[in-house]
């Protein structure tokens, strides 16, 4: 008979070392006695320290099961796990798939119990805020887990409350987090009292108020929140009174006469409610400025510019780097090109309403440069409500879409600009589609660019004539 003594609690490392040794010496599970804590009465005759064994290659699921089950309080856990490892190493690689096998079934139940205990500690642990000597707040909790899970729950609390200073005390060990390091400590005593600021009182009020007396069902409550956890949860103190008073509260509701409503004027209220849309272009612009960009990047919204009632509204794609800095549309290179083309076509830029389909500059940062990114169809769609509302205030006779993005925003469908350029009916507006000036900037040859530019100017002339 071999006796192996592991330390108190969840001794995953000790178990791992022991199992490696046992596997190396092909020791059968029936000949091993596992004990925890104090040395066994039979004397500890674990194999010599030199014989550490080799790493075992176990299926991933087996490793996971071991990690959980060692946390269980059952003194038999190590023997059961050893038996599992033995069988897996001796031809039953897929043993864990055989859920009906008595050993697997037993281990699955232990696994489930530990997982439930971990879950309940995540859920039912309550921190109290205590003032810290250095002026901050320190959070302290007391919890009584069933199993040896204190170390297993630590990552959850560290991740969730990384920016807080906290301590978790349990009879099975303690955890301390100072925003940098996690320290584990010895088992603790239940603190006499954990005074808190008034949040605890507020929480109790919330708990009482969120309960519906007409649905009282304490059995369902206890199935999920057994009484053993209540001692750690301040709100449970209110339960007896809540249950006791429930029937009377329901009876009172049933017996009460139907309420006689106070006089109110529904028509007025509902009419007031209907007047919620922005009432002017200025209103709308305030909304746009307050809103979060729906594309990544952008320091500020770039609003439309020009007189309300302009005969022609020109809709571009979206602001570029320079527009984003100045919060004005069409001031960058493409904007300058547009201004020049308008001049050539004999159109006064000041008489037009200029805006963009997307109100924010979308970019990725590369070193010091902000590289423009085209908006996706989805992003264009998000901005459509703003664009349409905006045009509703400007009321132009003709809407000119510069490029595919603007045409998509205005027509709601993808448009092949070069093929479909010319007049087009938009959603409720007479429209005209032409290229975006930035397309002209990108053309490679001088000759080609001159020709395209002339066509662009011709388009602008046609649009002006239509308007």
């Amino acid at each position, binding site marked *: 008979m071999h006796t192996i003594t592991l330390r108190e609690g969840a001794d995953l490392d000790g178990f791992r070392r022991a199992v490696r040794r046992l596997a190396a010496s092909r020791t059968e599970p029936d000949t091993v006695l596992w004990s925890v804590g104090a040395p066994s009465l039979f004397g500890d005759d674990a194999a010599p320290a030199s014989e550490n064994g080799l790493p075992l290659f176990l299926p991933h699921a087996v490793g996971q099961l071991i990690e959980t089950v060692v946390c269980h309080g059952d003194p038999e856990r190590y023997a059961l796990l050893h038996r599992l490892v033995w069988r897996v190493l001796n031809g039953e690689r897929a043993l864990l*798939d055989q*859920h*009906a096998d008595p050993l697997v079934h037993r281990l699955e139940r232990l696994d489930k119990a530990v997982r439930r205990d971990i879950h309940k500690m995540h859920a*039912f642990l*309550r*921190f109290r*805020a205590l003032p810290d000597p250095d002026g901050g707040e320190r*959070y302290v909790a007391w919890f009584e887990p069933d199993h040896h899970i204190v170390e297993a729950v630590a990552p*959850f609390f560290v991740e*969730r*409350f990384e*920016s807080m200073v906290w301590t978790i005390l349990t009879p099975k060990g303690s955890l301390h987090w100072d*925003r940098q390091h996690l320290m584990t400590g010895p088992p603790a005593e239940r603190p006499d009292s954990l005074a*808190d600021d*008034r*949040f*605890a*009182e*507020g*929480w109790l*009020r*919330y*708990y*009482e*108020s*969120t*309960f*519906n*007396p*007409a*649905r*009282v*069902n*304490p*059995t*369902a*409550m206890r199935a*999920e929140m057994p009484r053993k956890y209540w001692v750690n*949860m301040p709100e*449970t103190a209110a339960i007896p009174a*809540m*249950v006791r008073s429930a029937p009377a509260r*329901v009876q009172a*509701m*049933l017996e009460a006469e*139907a*309420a006689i*409503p*106070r006089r*109110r004027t529904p028509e007025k209220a*509902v009419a*007031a*409610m209907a007047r*919620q849309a922005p009432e002017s272009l200025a209103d709308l612009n305030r*909304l746009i400025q307050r*809103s*979060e960009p729906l594309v990544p990047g952008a320091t500020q919204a770039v609003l439309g510019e020009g007189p309300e009632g302009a005969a022609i509204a020109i809709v571009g794609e979206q602001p570029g780097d320079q527009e984003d800095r100045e919060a004005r549309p069409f001031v960058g290179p493409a904007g300058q090109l547009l201004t020049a083309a308008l001049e050539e076509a004999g159109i006064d830029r000041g008489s037009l309403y200029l805006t963009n389909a997307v109100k924010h500059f979308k970019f990725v940062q590369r070193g010091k440069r902000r590289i423009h990114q085209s908006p996706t169809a*989805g992003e264009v*769609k998000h901005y459509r*409500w703003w664009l349409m509302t905006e045009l509703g205030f400007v009321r132009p006779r003709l809407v000119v879409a510069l490029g595919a993005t603007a045409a998509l925003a205005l027509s709601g469908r993808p448009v092949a600009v070069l093929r479909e350029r010319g007049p087009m009916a938009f959603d409720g507006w007479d429209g005209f589609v032409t290229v975006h000036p930035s397309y002209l900037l990108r053309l490679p040859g001088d000759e080609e660019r001159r020709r395209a530019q002339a066509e662009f100017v011709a388009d602008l002339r046609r649009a002006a004539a239509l308007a």
Partner: protein
Amino acid sequence: MDDALIEKLGILADAAKYDASCASSGAKPRSGGKEGLGSTTGAGICHAYTPDGRCVSLLKILLTNHCLFDCVYCINRRSSNVRRARFTVAEVVELTLGFYKRNCIEGLFLSSGIIRSPDHTMEQMMLVARTLRRDHGFAGYIHLKTIPEASPWLIEQAGLWADRLSINLELPSDHSLKAFAPEKNGGTIKAVMGQVNERIVEAKEERRRFSPAGQSTQLIVGADDATDRSVLETSGTLYQRYGLRRVYYSAFSPIPEASSVLPVKPPPLQRENRLYQADWLLRYYGFTVEEIASGGEGGMLDLGIDPKLAWALKNRERFPVDVNRADREMLLRVPGLGARAVDKILSARRHTRLRMEDLGRLSSGLRRARPFLIAADYHPVGGLTDRLDLRQRLVTPSSQLSLF
């Protein structure tokens, strides 16, 4: 936290408790890190249970219980005489952070009566979420109840910050909506559901964040004359057409200050329970609304037994099922076998022929499943499923236990 705030919390939590949704699951795992606060784990955590058996996962409150609408089933309707209160954006933020730091909640569920205008209300709610996320690095769960009459731009903005958006349909038919919620418009509600669904699908394709935990809705059961069949038909449509994650069923329960239009009566809690079971069959067990409804009578589910058993009893010719041979679809239709038990059976039977004793270790509902099964060592003789008293044998009289 002063007395006034505690008092408001009492009023505005009380006013929010009739909303059934409380889940905090479905968000991708994330964490607020060194500067922020909180995390989501994907699975959701229930932090407490109240004596009505429902869990407390989120701080579920209204921004205000003032309301312009006059929906008869709602305690906050314009004509009700309840005490009114109103939180500021800062107060809701303070409460959420305070409770979250004490590990009382997974996050916030914020709803509101409609004040001033739907847009104003929706904007305040959106601002709460934005402040939590942007100014406090809050990484916990946020569920916003959309005001369907609000402008599309606000719904867009809300989706940037919330994990889940929901719009309550409340009543399954346009007809009852008109009768009980005169200012509500079924068309508007569904249009917003459509908009939200479209945005969610787009955002997924473009790997952007927009209500990543989907959308849900609530139907009130027992306030109007709708049958279970029509309730389930509505749900079926909502799942299919708008990709809803969940439809919550809330048994109409007596409220203080009830309207005289509604008969005041105890809540049909059992009916709510059966609808949830039926909903489950719809979403995870491959049942159709038609099949589920056929288990009951006159469009109503059988209150005495669960809908799967009801269906099985009316389709006895399809049983018993051989656990060692049947496909997954058929095993899922065996009363008492849940999806997890079925998966275990499928993986276990690759290695061995299952006997009754084995099944006992795989499923905790074997007592009910027994008459519908064939196992390696068990062939029900004389056709147990033909027995007329099968239903009685399977139904144990339930009695409510008292706590104290």
